[in-house]
């Protein structure tokens, strides 16, 4: 019952926030429809001809009142239709997103997994060796990696590995010689192309995971029940189990929120590596004021973040008996 209620709240939230973005996007200076209209008029059309032409091309009525546009958008949305791109005439937003999503999804999933595995291992090592120089080395490397922005890390890697050493390709998601599909050459080519973007993602994320894992491990190590477990004669494997389950809990929420990034990608990283994912799609859409594509990308991110939060709440209660949703 509680879950039903929470799901309804989540749905309402998704609706409200996407409605807000609908208006926000249109508040940006520069209207692509007016631009197109002017272009057509310069070719010698009358205002009426230009408007008709646009309506035929894009299924958009120029100079329609905003609320009317919103009403139309809502009706289409309820039919599961996100509209079509203004820039790439005739291509539906859904298709653009479905084309871009797998690249981002797989790359970020691998990057996220990598950064959490590395972060957790380094955090635990740093907590255990907290009196040694190894710990301060790990902490400082983690802080610096976390503090350097993704586009700087990305450009540095790009420069080093493609300009200086020619090890990895500088952009794209796969080579031109392979055919996309479920075949080995394509998969290998994709993995080869995603190493740099994925690595950039790991480099910029693992630092914060390391630092929070370290602090929660130290907190747990100093808990009375860990000392009690030692004195009760529990074997090392059991102690690690007690330590692990208790110290990883605080990281869980952060992990679930990062799942939102899974579906939005990183604009900076994908732009740097010319990676055809969602981040790149959004950046291009923003630059060309492609309203429907922007809205589609935003809605995807909004929905994932809210659903991930809901999921985090539900799963957290399963992991920690003290929490009651």
């Amino acid at each position: 019952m509680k879950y039903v209620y929470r799901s309804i709240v989540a749905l309402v939230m998704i609706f409200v926030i996407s409605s807000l973005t609908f208006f926000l996007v249109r508040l940006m200076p520069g209207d692509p429809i007016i631009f197109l209209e002017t272009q057509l008029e310069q070719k010698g059309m009358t205002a009426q001809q230009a408007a008709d032409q646009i309506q035929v091309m894009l299924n958009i009525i120029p100079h329609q009142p905003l609320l009317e546009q919103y009403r139309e958008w809502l009706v289409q949305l309820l039919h599961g239709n996100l509209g079509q791109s203004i820039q790439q005439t005739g291509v539906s937003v859904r298709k653009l997103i479905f084309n871009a999503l797998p690249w981002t999804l797989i790359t970020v999933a691998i990057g996220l997994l990598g950064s959490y595995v590395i972060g957790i291992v380094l955090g635990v090592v740093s907590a255990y060796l907290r009196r040694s120089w190894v710990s301060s080395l790990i902490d400082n490397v983690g802080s610096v990696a976390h503090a350097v922005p993704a586009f700087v890390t990305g450009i540095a890697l790009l420069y080093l590995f493609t300009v200086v050493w020619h090890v990895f390709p500088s952009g794209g998601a796969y080579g031109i010689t392979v055919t996309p599909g479920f075949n080995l050459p394509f998969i290998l080519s994709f993995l080869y192309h995603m190493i740099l973007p994925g690595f950039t993602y790991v480099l910029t994320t693992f630092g914060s995971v390391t630092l929070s894992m370290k602090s929660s491990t130290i907190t747990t190590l100093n808990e009375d029940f860990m000392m009690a477990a030692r004195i009760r004669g529990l074997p090392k494997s059991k102690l690690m189990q007690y330590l692990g389950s208790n110290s990883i809990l605080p990281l869980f929420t952060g992990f679930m929120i990062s799942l939102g990034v899974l579906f939005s990608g990183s604009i900076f990283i994908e732009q740097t590596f010319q990676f055809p994912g969602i981040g790149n799609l959004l950046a291009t859409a923003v630059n060309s004021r492609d309203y429907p594509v922007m809205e589609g990308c935003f809605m995807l991110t909004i929905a994932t973040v809210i659903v991930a939060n809901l999921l985090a709440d539900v799963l957290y209660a399963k992991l920690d008996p003290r929490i009651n949703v």
Partner: protein
Amino acid sequence: MNEVLSVRGLTIVFPMGHRTIRAVDNVSFSIAKGESIALVGESGSGKSTIAFALFNNVPQPGIIESGEIRYFQGGNFLEMGQASQRQVFWEKVSMVFQAAQNTLNPLLRIRRQVEDIAQAHHVNKKVAIDKARELLSTMYLDPTRVLDAYPHELSGGMKQRVSIALALLLDPEIIVLDEPTTALDVISQASVLKILNEIRRQRNISLIFITHDISVISQVVDRVLVMYAGSVVESGLVQKIVRDPSHPYAKGLIGSIPPLVGDLSDVHGLRGNPVNLLSLSGGCPFADRCPDVMTRCRTDRPLMRQLSTGNAVACHLYDAEGEEVRT
């Protein structure tokens, strides 16, 4: 006398920057089978540190500098390998912790924690659960409800009793009780002590109480060691210490207990603050607060002397009496 534990010359230091603190200084005591003793002293007197040393688990950054701990007249426990130490833990010697509320893993039901202990010591899980049921009943707890509960679903007093039940799970011969009643209200204190006393009589186990409150445990212990600044300043039978303490610190400690009936004006606290272990000189650590301080107290450390009353005391006031005890 069947000695189950003997501690000789135990010294524990805590390095603090350039200096080291001697939290426990050359402490020796022993305990016989079925005997109940108490280490009494104020905060910072080193009594809890001794409790953890008995498990070779001194809190960081403490180091056991010297000394011997022998269980059941065996080899020095501190020099054993981890595997042999783990055999002694809980099977032979168990502990009821200070703030026992926090000594249960918050993510696991009590049943799982009982099973984990059983598994670690190669005891059949079902046998252990049955044993736990029996023990929880003697603690006036509903076994089924408690076993299926998470720690946060139990009250502080209940967790304390669960902690005592866990300590008894493997039939140990010695139980170390670190402030077992401090977190409890007076009624729970009385019932916990009653339970402990019954169990001790039934199973003939030895108890080591670590406490600052001599009045609470005086009914359940045979012998008392009064500690000050890391050393034992007086030891003897509990009645002797309570009625006729010899060391000025023990006198002050006993004199500061408010009587249940009578005039509170007879109650006097000890003057001064607990000693700063960093500023200890060569003399008696209690010299600065002692009402009977003499010149030699500032320079010479008093040695333990056996008095005719039966108590042993480390104080220059008694230099003329009794004979020195080897420690």
